[in-house]
């Protein structure tokens, strides 16, 4: 019962967040200087007639007061209508839908690399000899501090141009996914692993760890069965960081490896001032945040029996 109430509360908050994101992007678009009608018709180069401009203004309610425009925008959103892409001449939902598969595959592959790597490195290096820790920690700091596109470049130069193990770019096949996914994963790994190891080292000092060892449990099982759950709870609060890194990183990685996906769609839309698509992508990102945080919240209740109240 408590869990259900918790879910409903969080869902309500999530809807609020989506509404806020929609309003903020609408405001931003409304306030941006420039003639929206001109943009819709293809920019100043299109040289539309005054009549066409007026026609477009009337169609898109651009001659109406703010509140009417906002109301119709929200109304359309509620019906799931994100509008038409100016550039692609497609409904926004369709434009995003075409690209989302590729980005989802990239993000999933990156997570599939990053999480096991983080857990393995943190579990094996926590409370080890000073030199082990400083080497591992040094690598992590370098990875966390290096911009994604530099990591990507290095990987490209070594494994595509040099060793020729993987294709330079594109969306064809699994081989093309490897380098982009690793690039994205490394950007997440550095920070996560640092945090997880620090948490593990705190937990390994706790008396219950000594109790577990006094029962005859070996070192590695103690780390995995006892310490990891405790250390994972604070690390789960880093999920927001991970999602941000994946979304932001996908823009860079997709461009760098000339992949299709939401990231490259976002970039192209920004170049062409394709506002409906930009709004759609912002709302999608917000929705992803809301859903992920809801899932994390439920995971808390599963991992920590003391979390019961919302």
């Amino acid at each position, binding site marked *: 019962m408590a869990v259900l109430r918790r879910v409903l509360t969080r869902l309500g908050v999530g809807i609020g967040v989506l509404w806020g994101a929609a309003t903020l992007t609408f405001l931003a678009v409304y306030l941006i200087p420039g003639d929206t009608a001109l943009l819709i018709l293809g920019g100043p180069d299109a040289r539309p007639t005054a009549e066409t401009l007026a026609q477009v203004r009337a169609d898109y309610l651009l001659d109406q007061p703010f509140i009417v425009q906002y109301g119709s925008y929200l109304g359309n959103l509620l019906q799931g209508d994100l509008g038409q892409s100016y550039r692609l001449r497609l409904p926004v939902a369709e434009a995003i839908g075409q690209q989302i598969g590729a980005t989802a595959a990239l993000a999933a592959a990156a997570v599939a690399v990053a999480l096991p790597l983080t857990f393995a490195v943190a579990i094996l290096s926590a409370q080890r000899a000073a030199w082990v820790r400083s080497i591992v920690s040094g690598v992590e700091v370098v990875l966390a501090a290096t911009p994604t596109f530099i990591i990507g470049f290095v990987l490209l130069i070594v494994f595509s141009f040099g060793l020729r193990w993987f294709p330079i770019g594109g969306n064809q096949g699994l081989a093309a996914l490897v380098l982009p996914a690793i690039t994205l994963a490394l950007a997440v790994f550095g920070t996560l692993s640092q945090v997880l190891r620090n948490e593990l080292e705190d937990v390994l000092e706790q008396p219950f760890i000594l*109790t577990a*060892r006094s029962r005859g449990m070996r070192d590695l099982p103690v780390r995995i069965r006892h310490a990891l759950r405790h250390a994972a709870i604070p690390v789960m609060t880093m999920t927001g960081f991970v999602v941000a890194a994946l979304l932001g990183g996908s823009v860079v990685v997709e461009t760098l490896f000339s992949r299709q996906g939401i990231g490259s769609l976002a970039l192209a839309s920004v170049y062409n001032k394709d506002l409906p698509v930009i709004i759609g992508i912002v709302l999608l990102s917000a929705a992803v945040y809301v859903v992920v945080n809801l899932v994390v919240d439920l995971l808390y209740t599963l991992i920590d029996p003391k979390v019961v109240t919302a």
Partner: protein
Amino acid sequence: MSPTALTRPSIPAPPFVVPPPVVELEGLSVAFGRGTHRREIIHDLSLSVRPGECLALVGESGSGKSVTARTLVGLTGPGAQVRSTAQRFDGRDASAWGERQWSRIRGREAGFILQDALSSLDSLRTVGDEVGEVLRLHGDLDRHARRERVLELLASVGVPDPGIRAAQYPHQLSGGLRQRALIASAIAADPAFLIADEPTTALDATIAAQVLRLLGDLKGGSTAMLVVSHDLAVVAGLADRVAVMRDGAIVEEGSVQAVLQDPQHPYTQGLLAAIPSRSSRGRRLTVQVQDHNQDQDQDQGRPVPARDFPTPGPPALEVRGLTRAFPGPDGGRRTAVDGVSFTLHRGTTLGIVGESGSGKSTVARMALGVEQPDAGTVHVRGRTWAEHRASRDLAARRSVQMIYQDPLQSFDPRKTVQQVIGQAVAAAGTPRNARPARVRELLHLVGLPADKAGSRPLELSGGQRQRVAIARALAAEPEVIICDEPVSALDITVQARILDLLTELQERFGLSYLFISHDLGVIQHVSREVLVLKDGIVLEHGPVAGVFDAPGHEYTRRLIDAIPALPAPRKDTPHP
């Protein structure tokens, strides 16, 4: 300086009856750190425990007793350099054992009970899983049989409704039940050797007594037991032999009777003399020991004059019908203090006794005037706190001071001792040019060397910090000092010095103490009157002798019964 060990033969028995020791340790030395940071903390220590025997390792914090106990099962800790001339476990040579061999011994042949079961049990796993872990690691029982065995174990250590308890998490159990569950997990595989490291330290007195009884039951049979404790009284009821540790070495070892009744080593004698009790009333607790601590009092066993306060002075603090309720977890209000009344007379000490949650700290805060009662009054200098507040009477405010269990939390860690006390001196209205001299005077009063003035709280020992707290309280020249568990976190000999200091200051300045403690020995030593608090209600109130000799309430009787008894010293009372 290396203290010499005084070893005595234990109870003589024919060699063919005596089974070989379960654990044996000879010439153990343990060091931590490397190079210039290397510090040897155990020096040339030997001990052994036979089946059916209980050895107690007694010592103050830093004496190395826990490290020794952990070394016996190969858990000395990361970075420890352990050396010994011989280490045997159940007759096998264990001196070269690594993690693999020890992990087969731990749990199956050696059980380990740590203090404070809340942090010693994994808070994210059910009690049943924790207890069953030993069986999972060492036994060949299937899941179902394991569960049966866990329930049997919980029942055997006196956990009611084991079926329900096994499915709960440690934080859902009371302190006593948690400790029992921890014991169940240690004995799950029926080990031949059991270590209990401060098994009762975090528990209330009545609960501690129950846990001690349980450990006593386990001792019967062939189990060898090692109990580690700072408390000689705890050990007296449980152990057969005692080894007194100091600075990483055993200074005295022998049967409980011999060591406690006729201690040979001056350190043991000092430890025993430092235990506050009824019989220690009116005398100093500190005797001169060849001590390395610089804040050691030199006055040896000097009787304290005029201790039993025949004539109480005028009232210094009058409390009438104090009542205070707090919002409860279920949305209702929980009454923490209910109609508490007492009078604290000038120059005397009133002891308040109660277990955790009895409302003693709430009473203290209301007496100090920092917490408003829902009903009732506190009179200081003839007027209530509310009236003093209305007339902005700062002198009344200063006349009641407080010292806490952990003074560290009441100090700004960045301020020096000079600044901490100086602030209180300034608040007391001392003119600026007289302040440094006043700080020096206060430091001298509490027995702190003047060169400690530049130290920061973290650089001081527990006893020194409490002295700084006392000096800060004295700065305002108070009439009343509320002492909330002022010695509970201190080692026994340090506790003795602080109690002696408080007594001395009381005589000198005619101070009145409201003395809160869970330790009945301390209360009997310091108080003229005592007040027993339970669930916010005063159960008993009267002179110490009256309350303790003829308790009028069942709860008081249980509290008194829970005081672990020390055998009386042989020289005073001849034993049959």
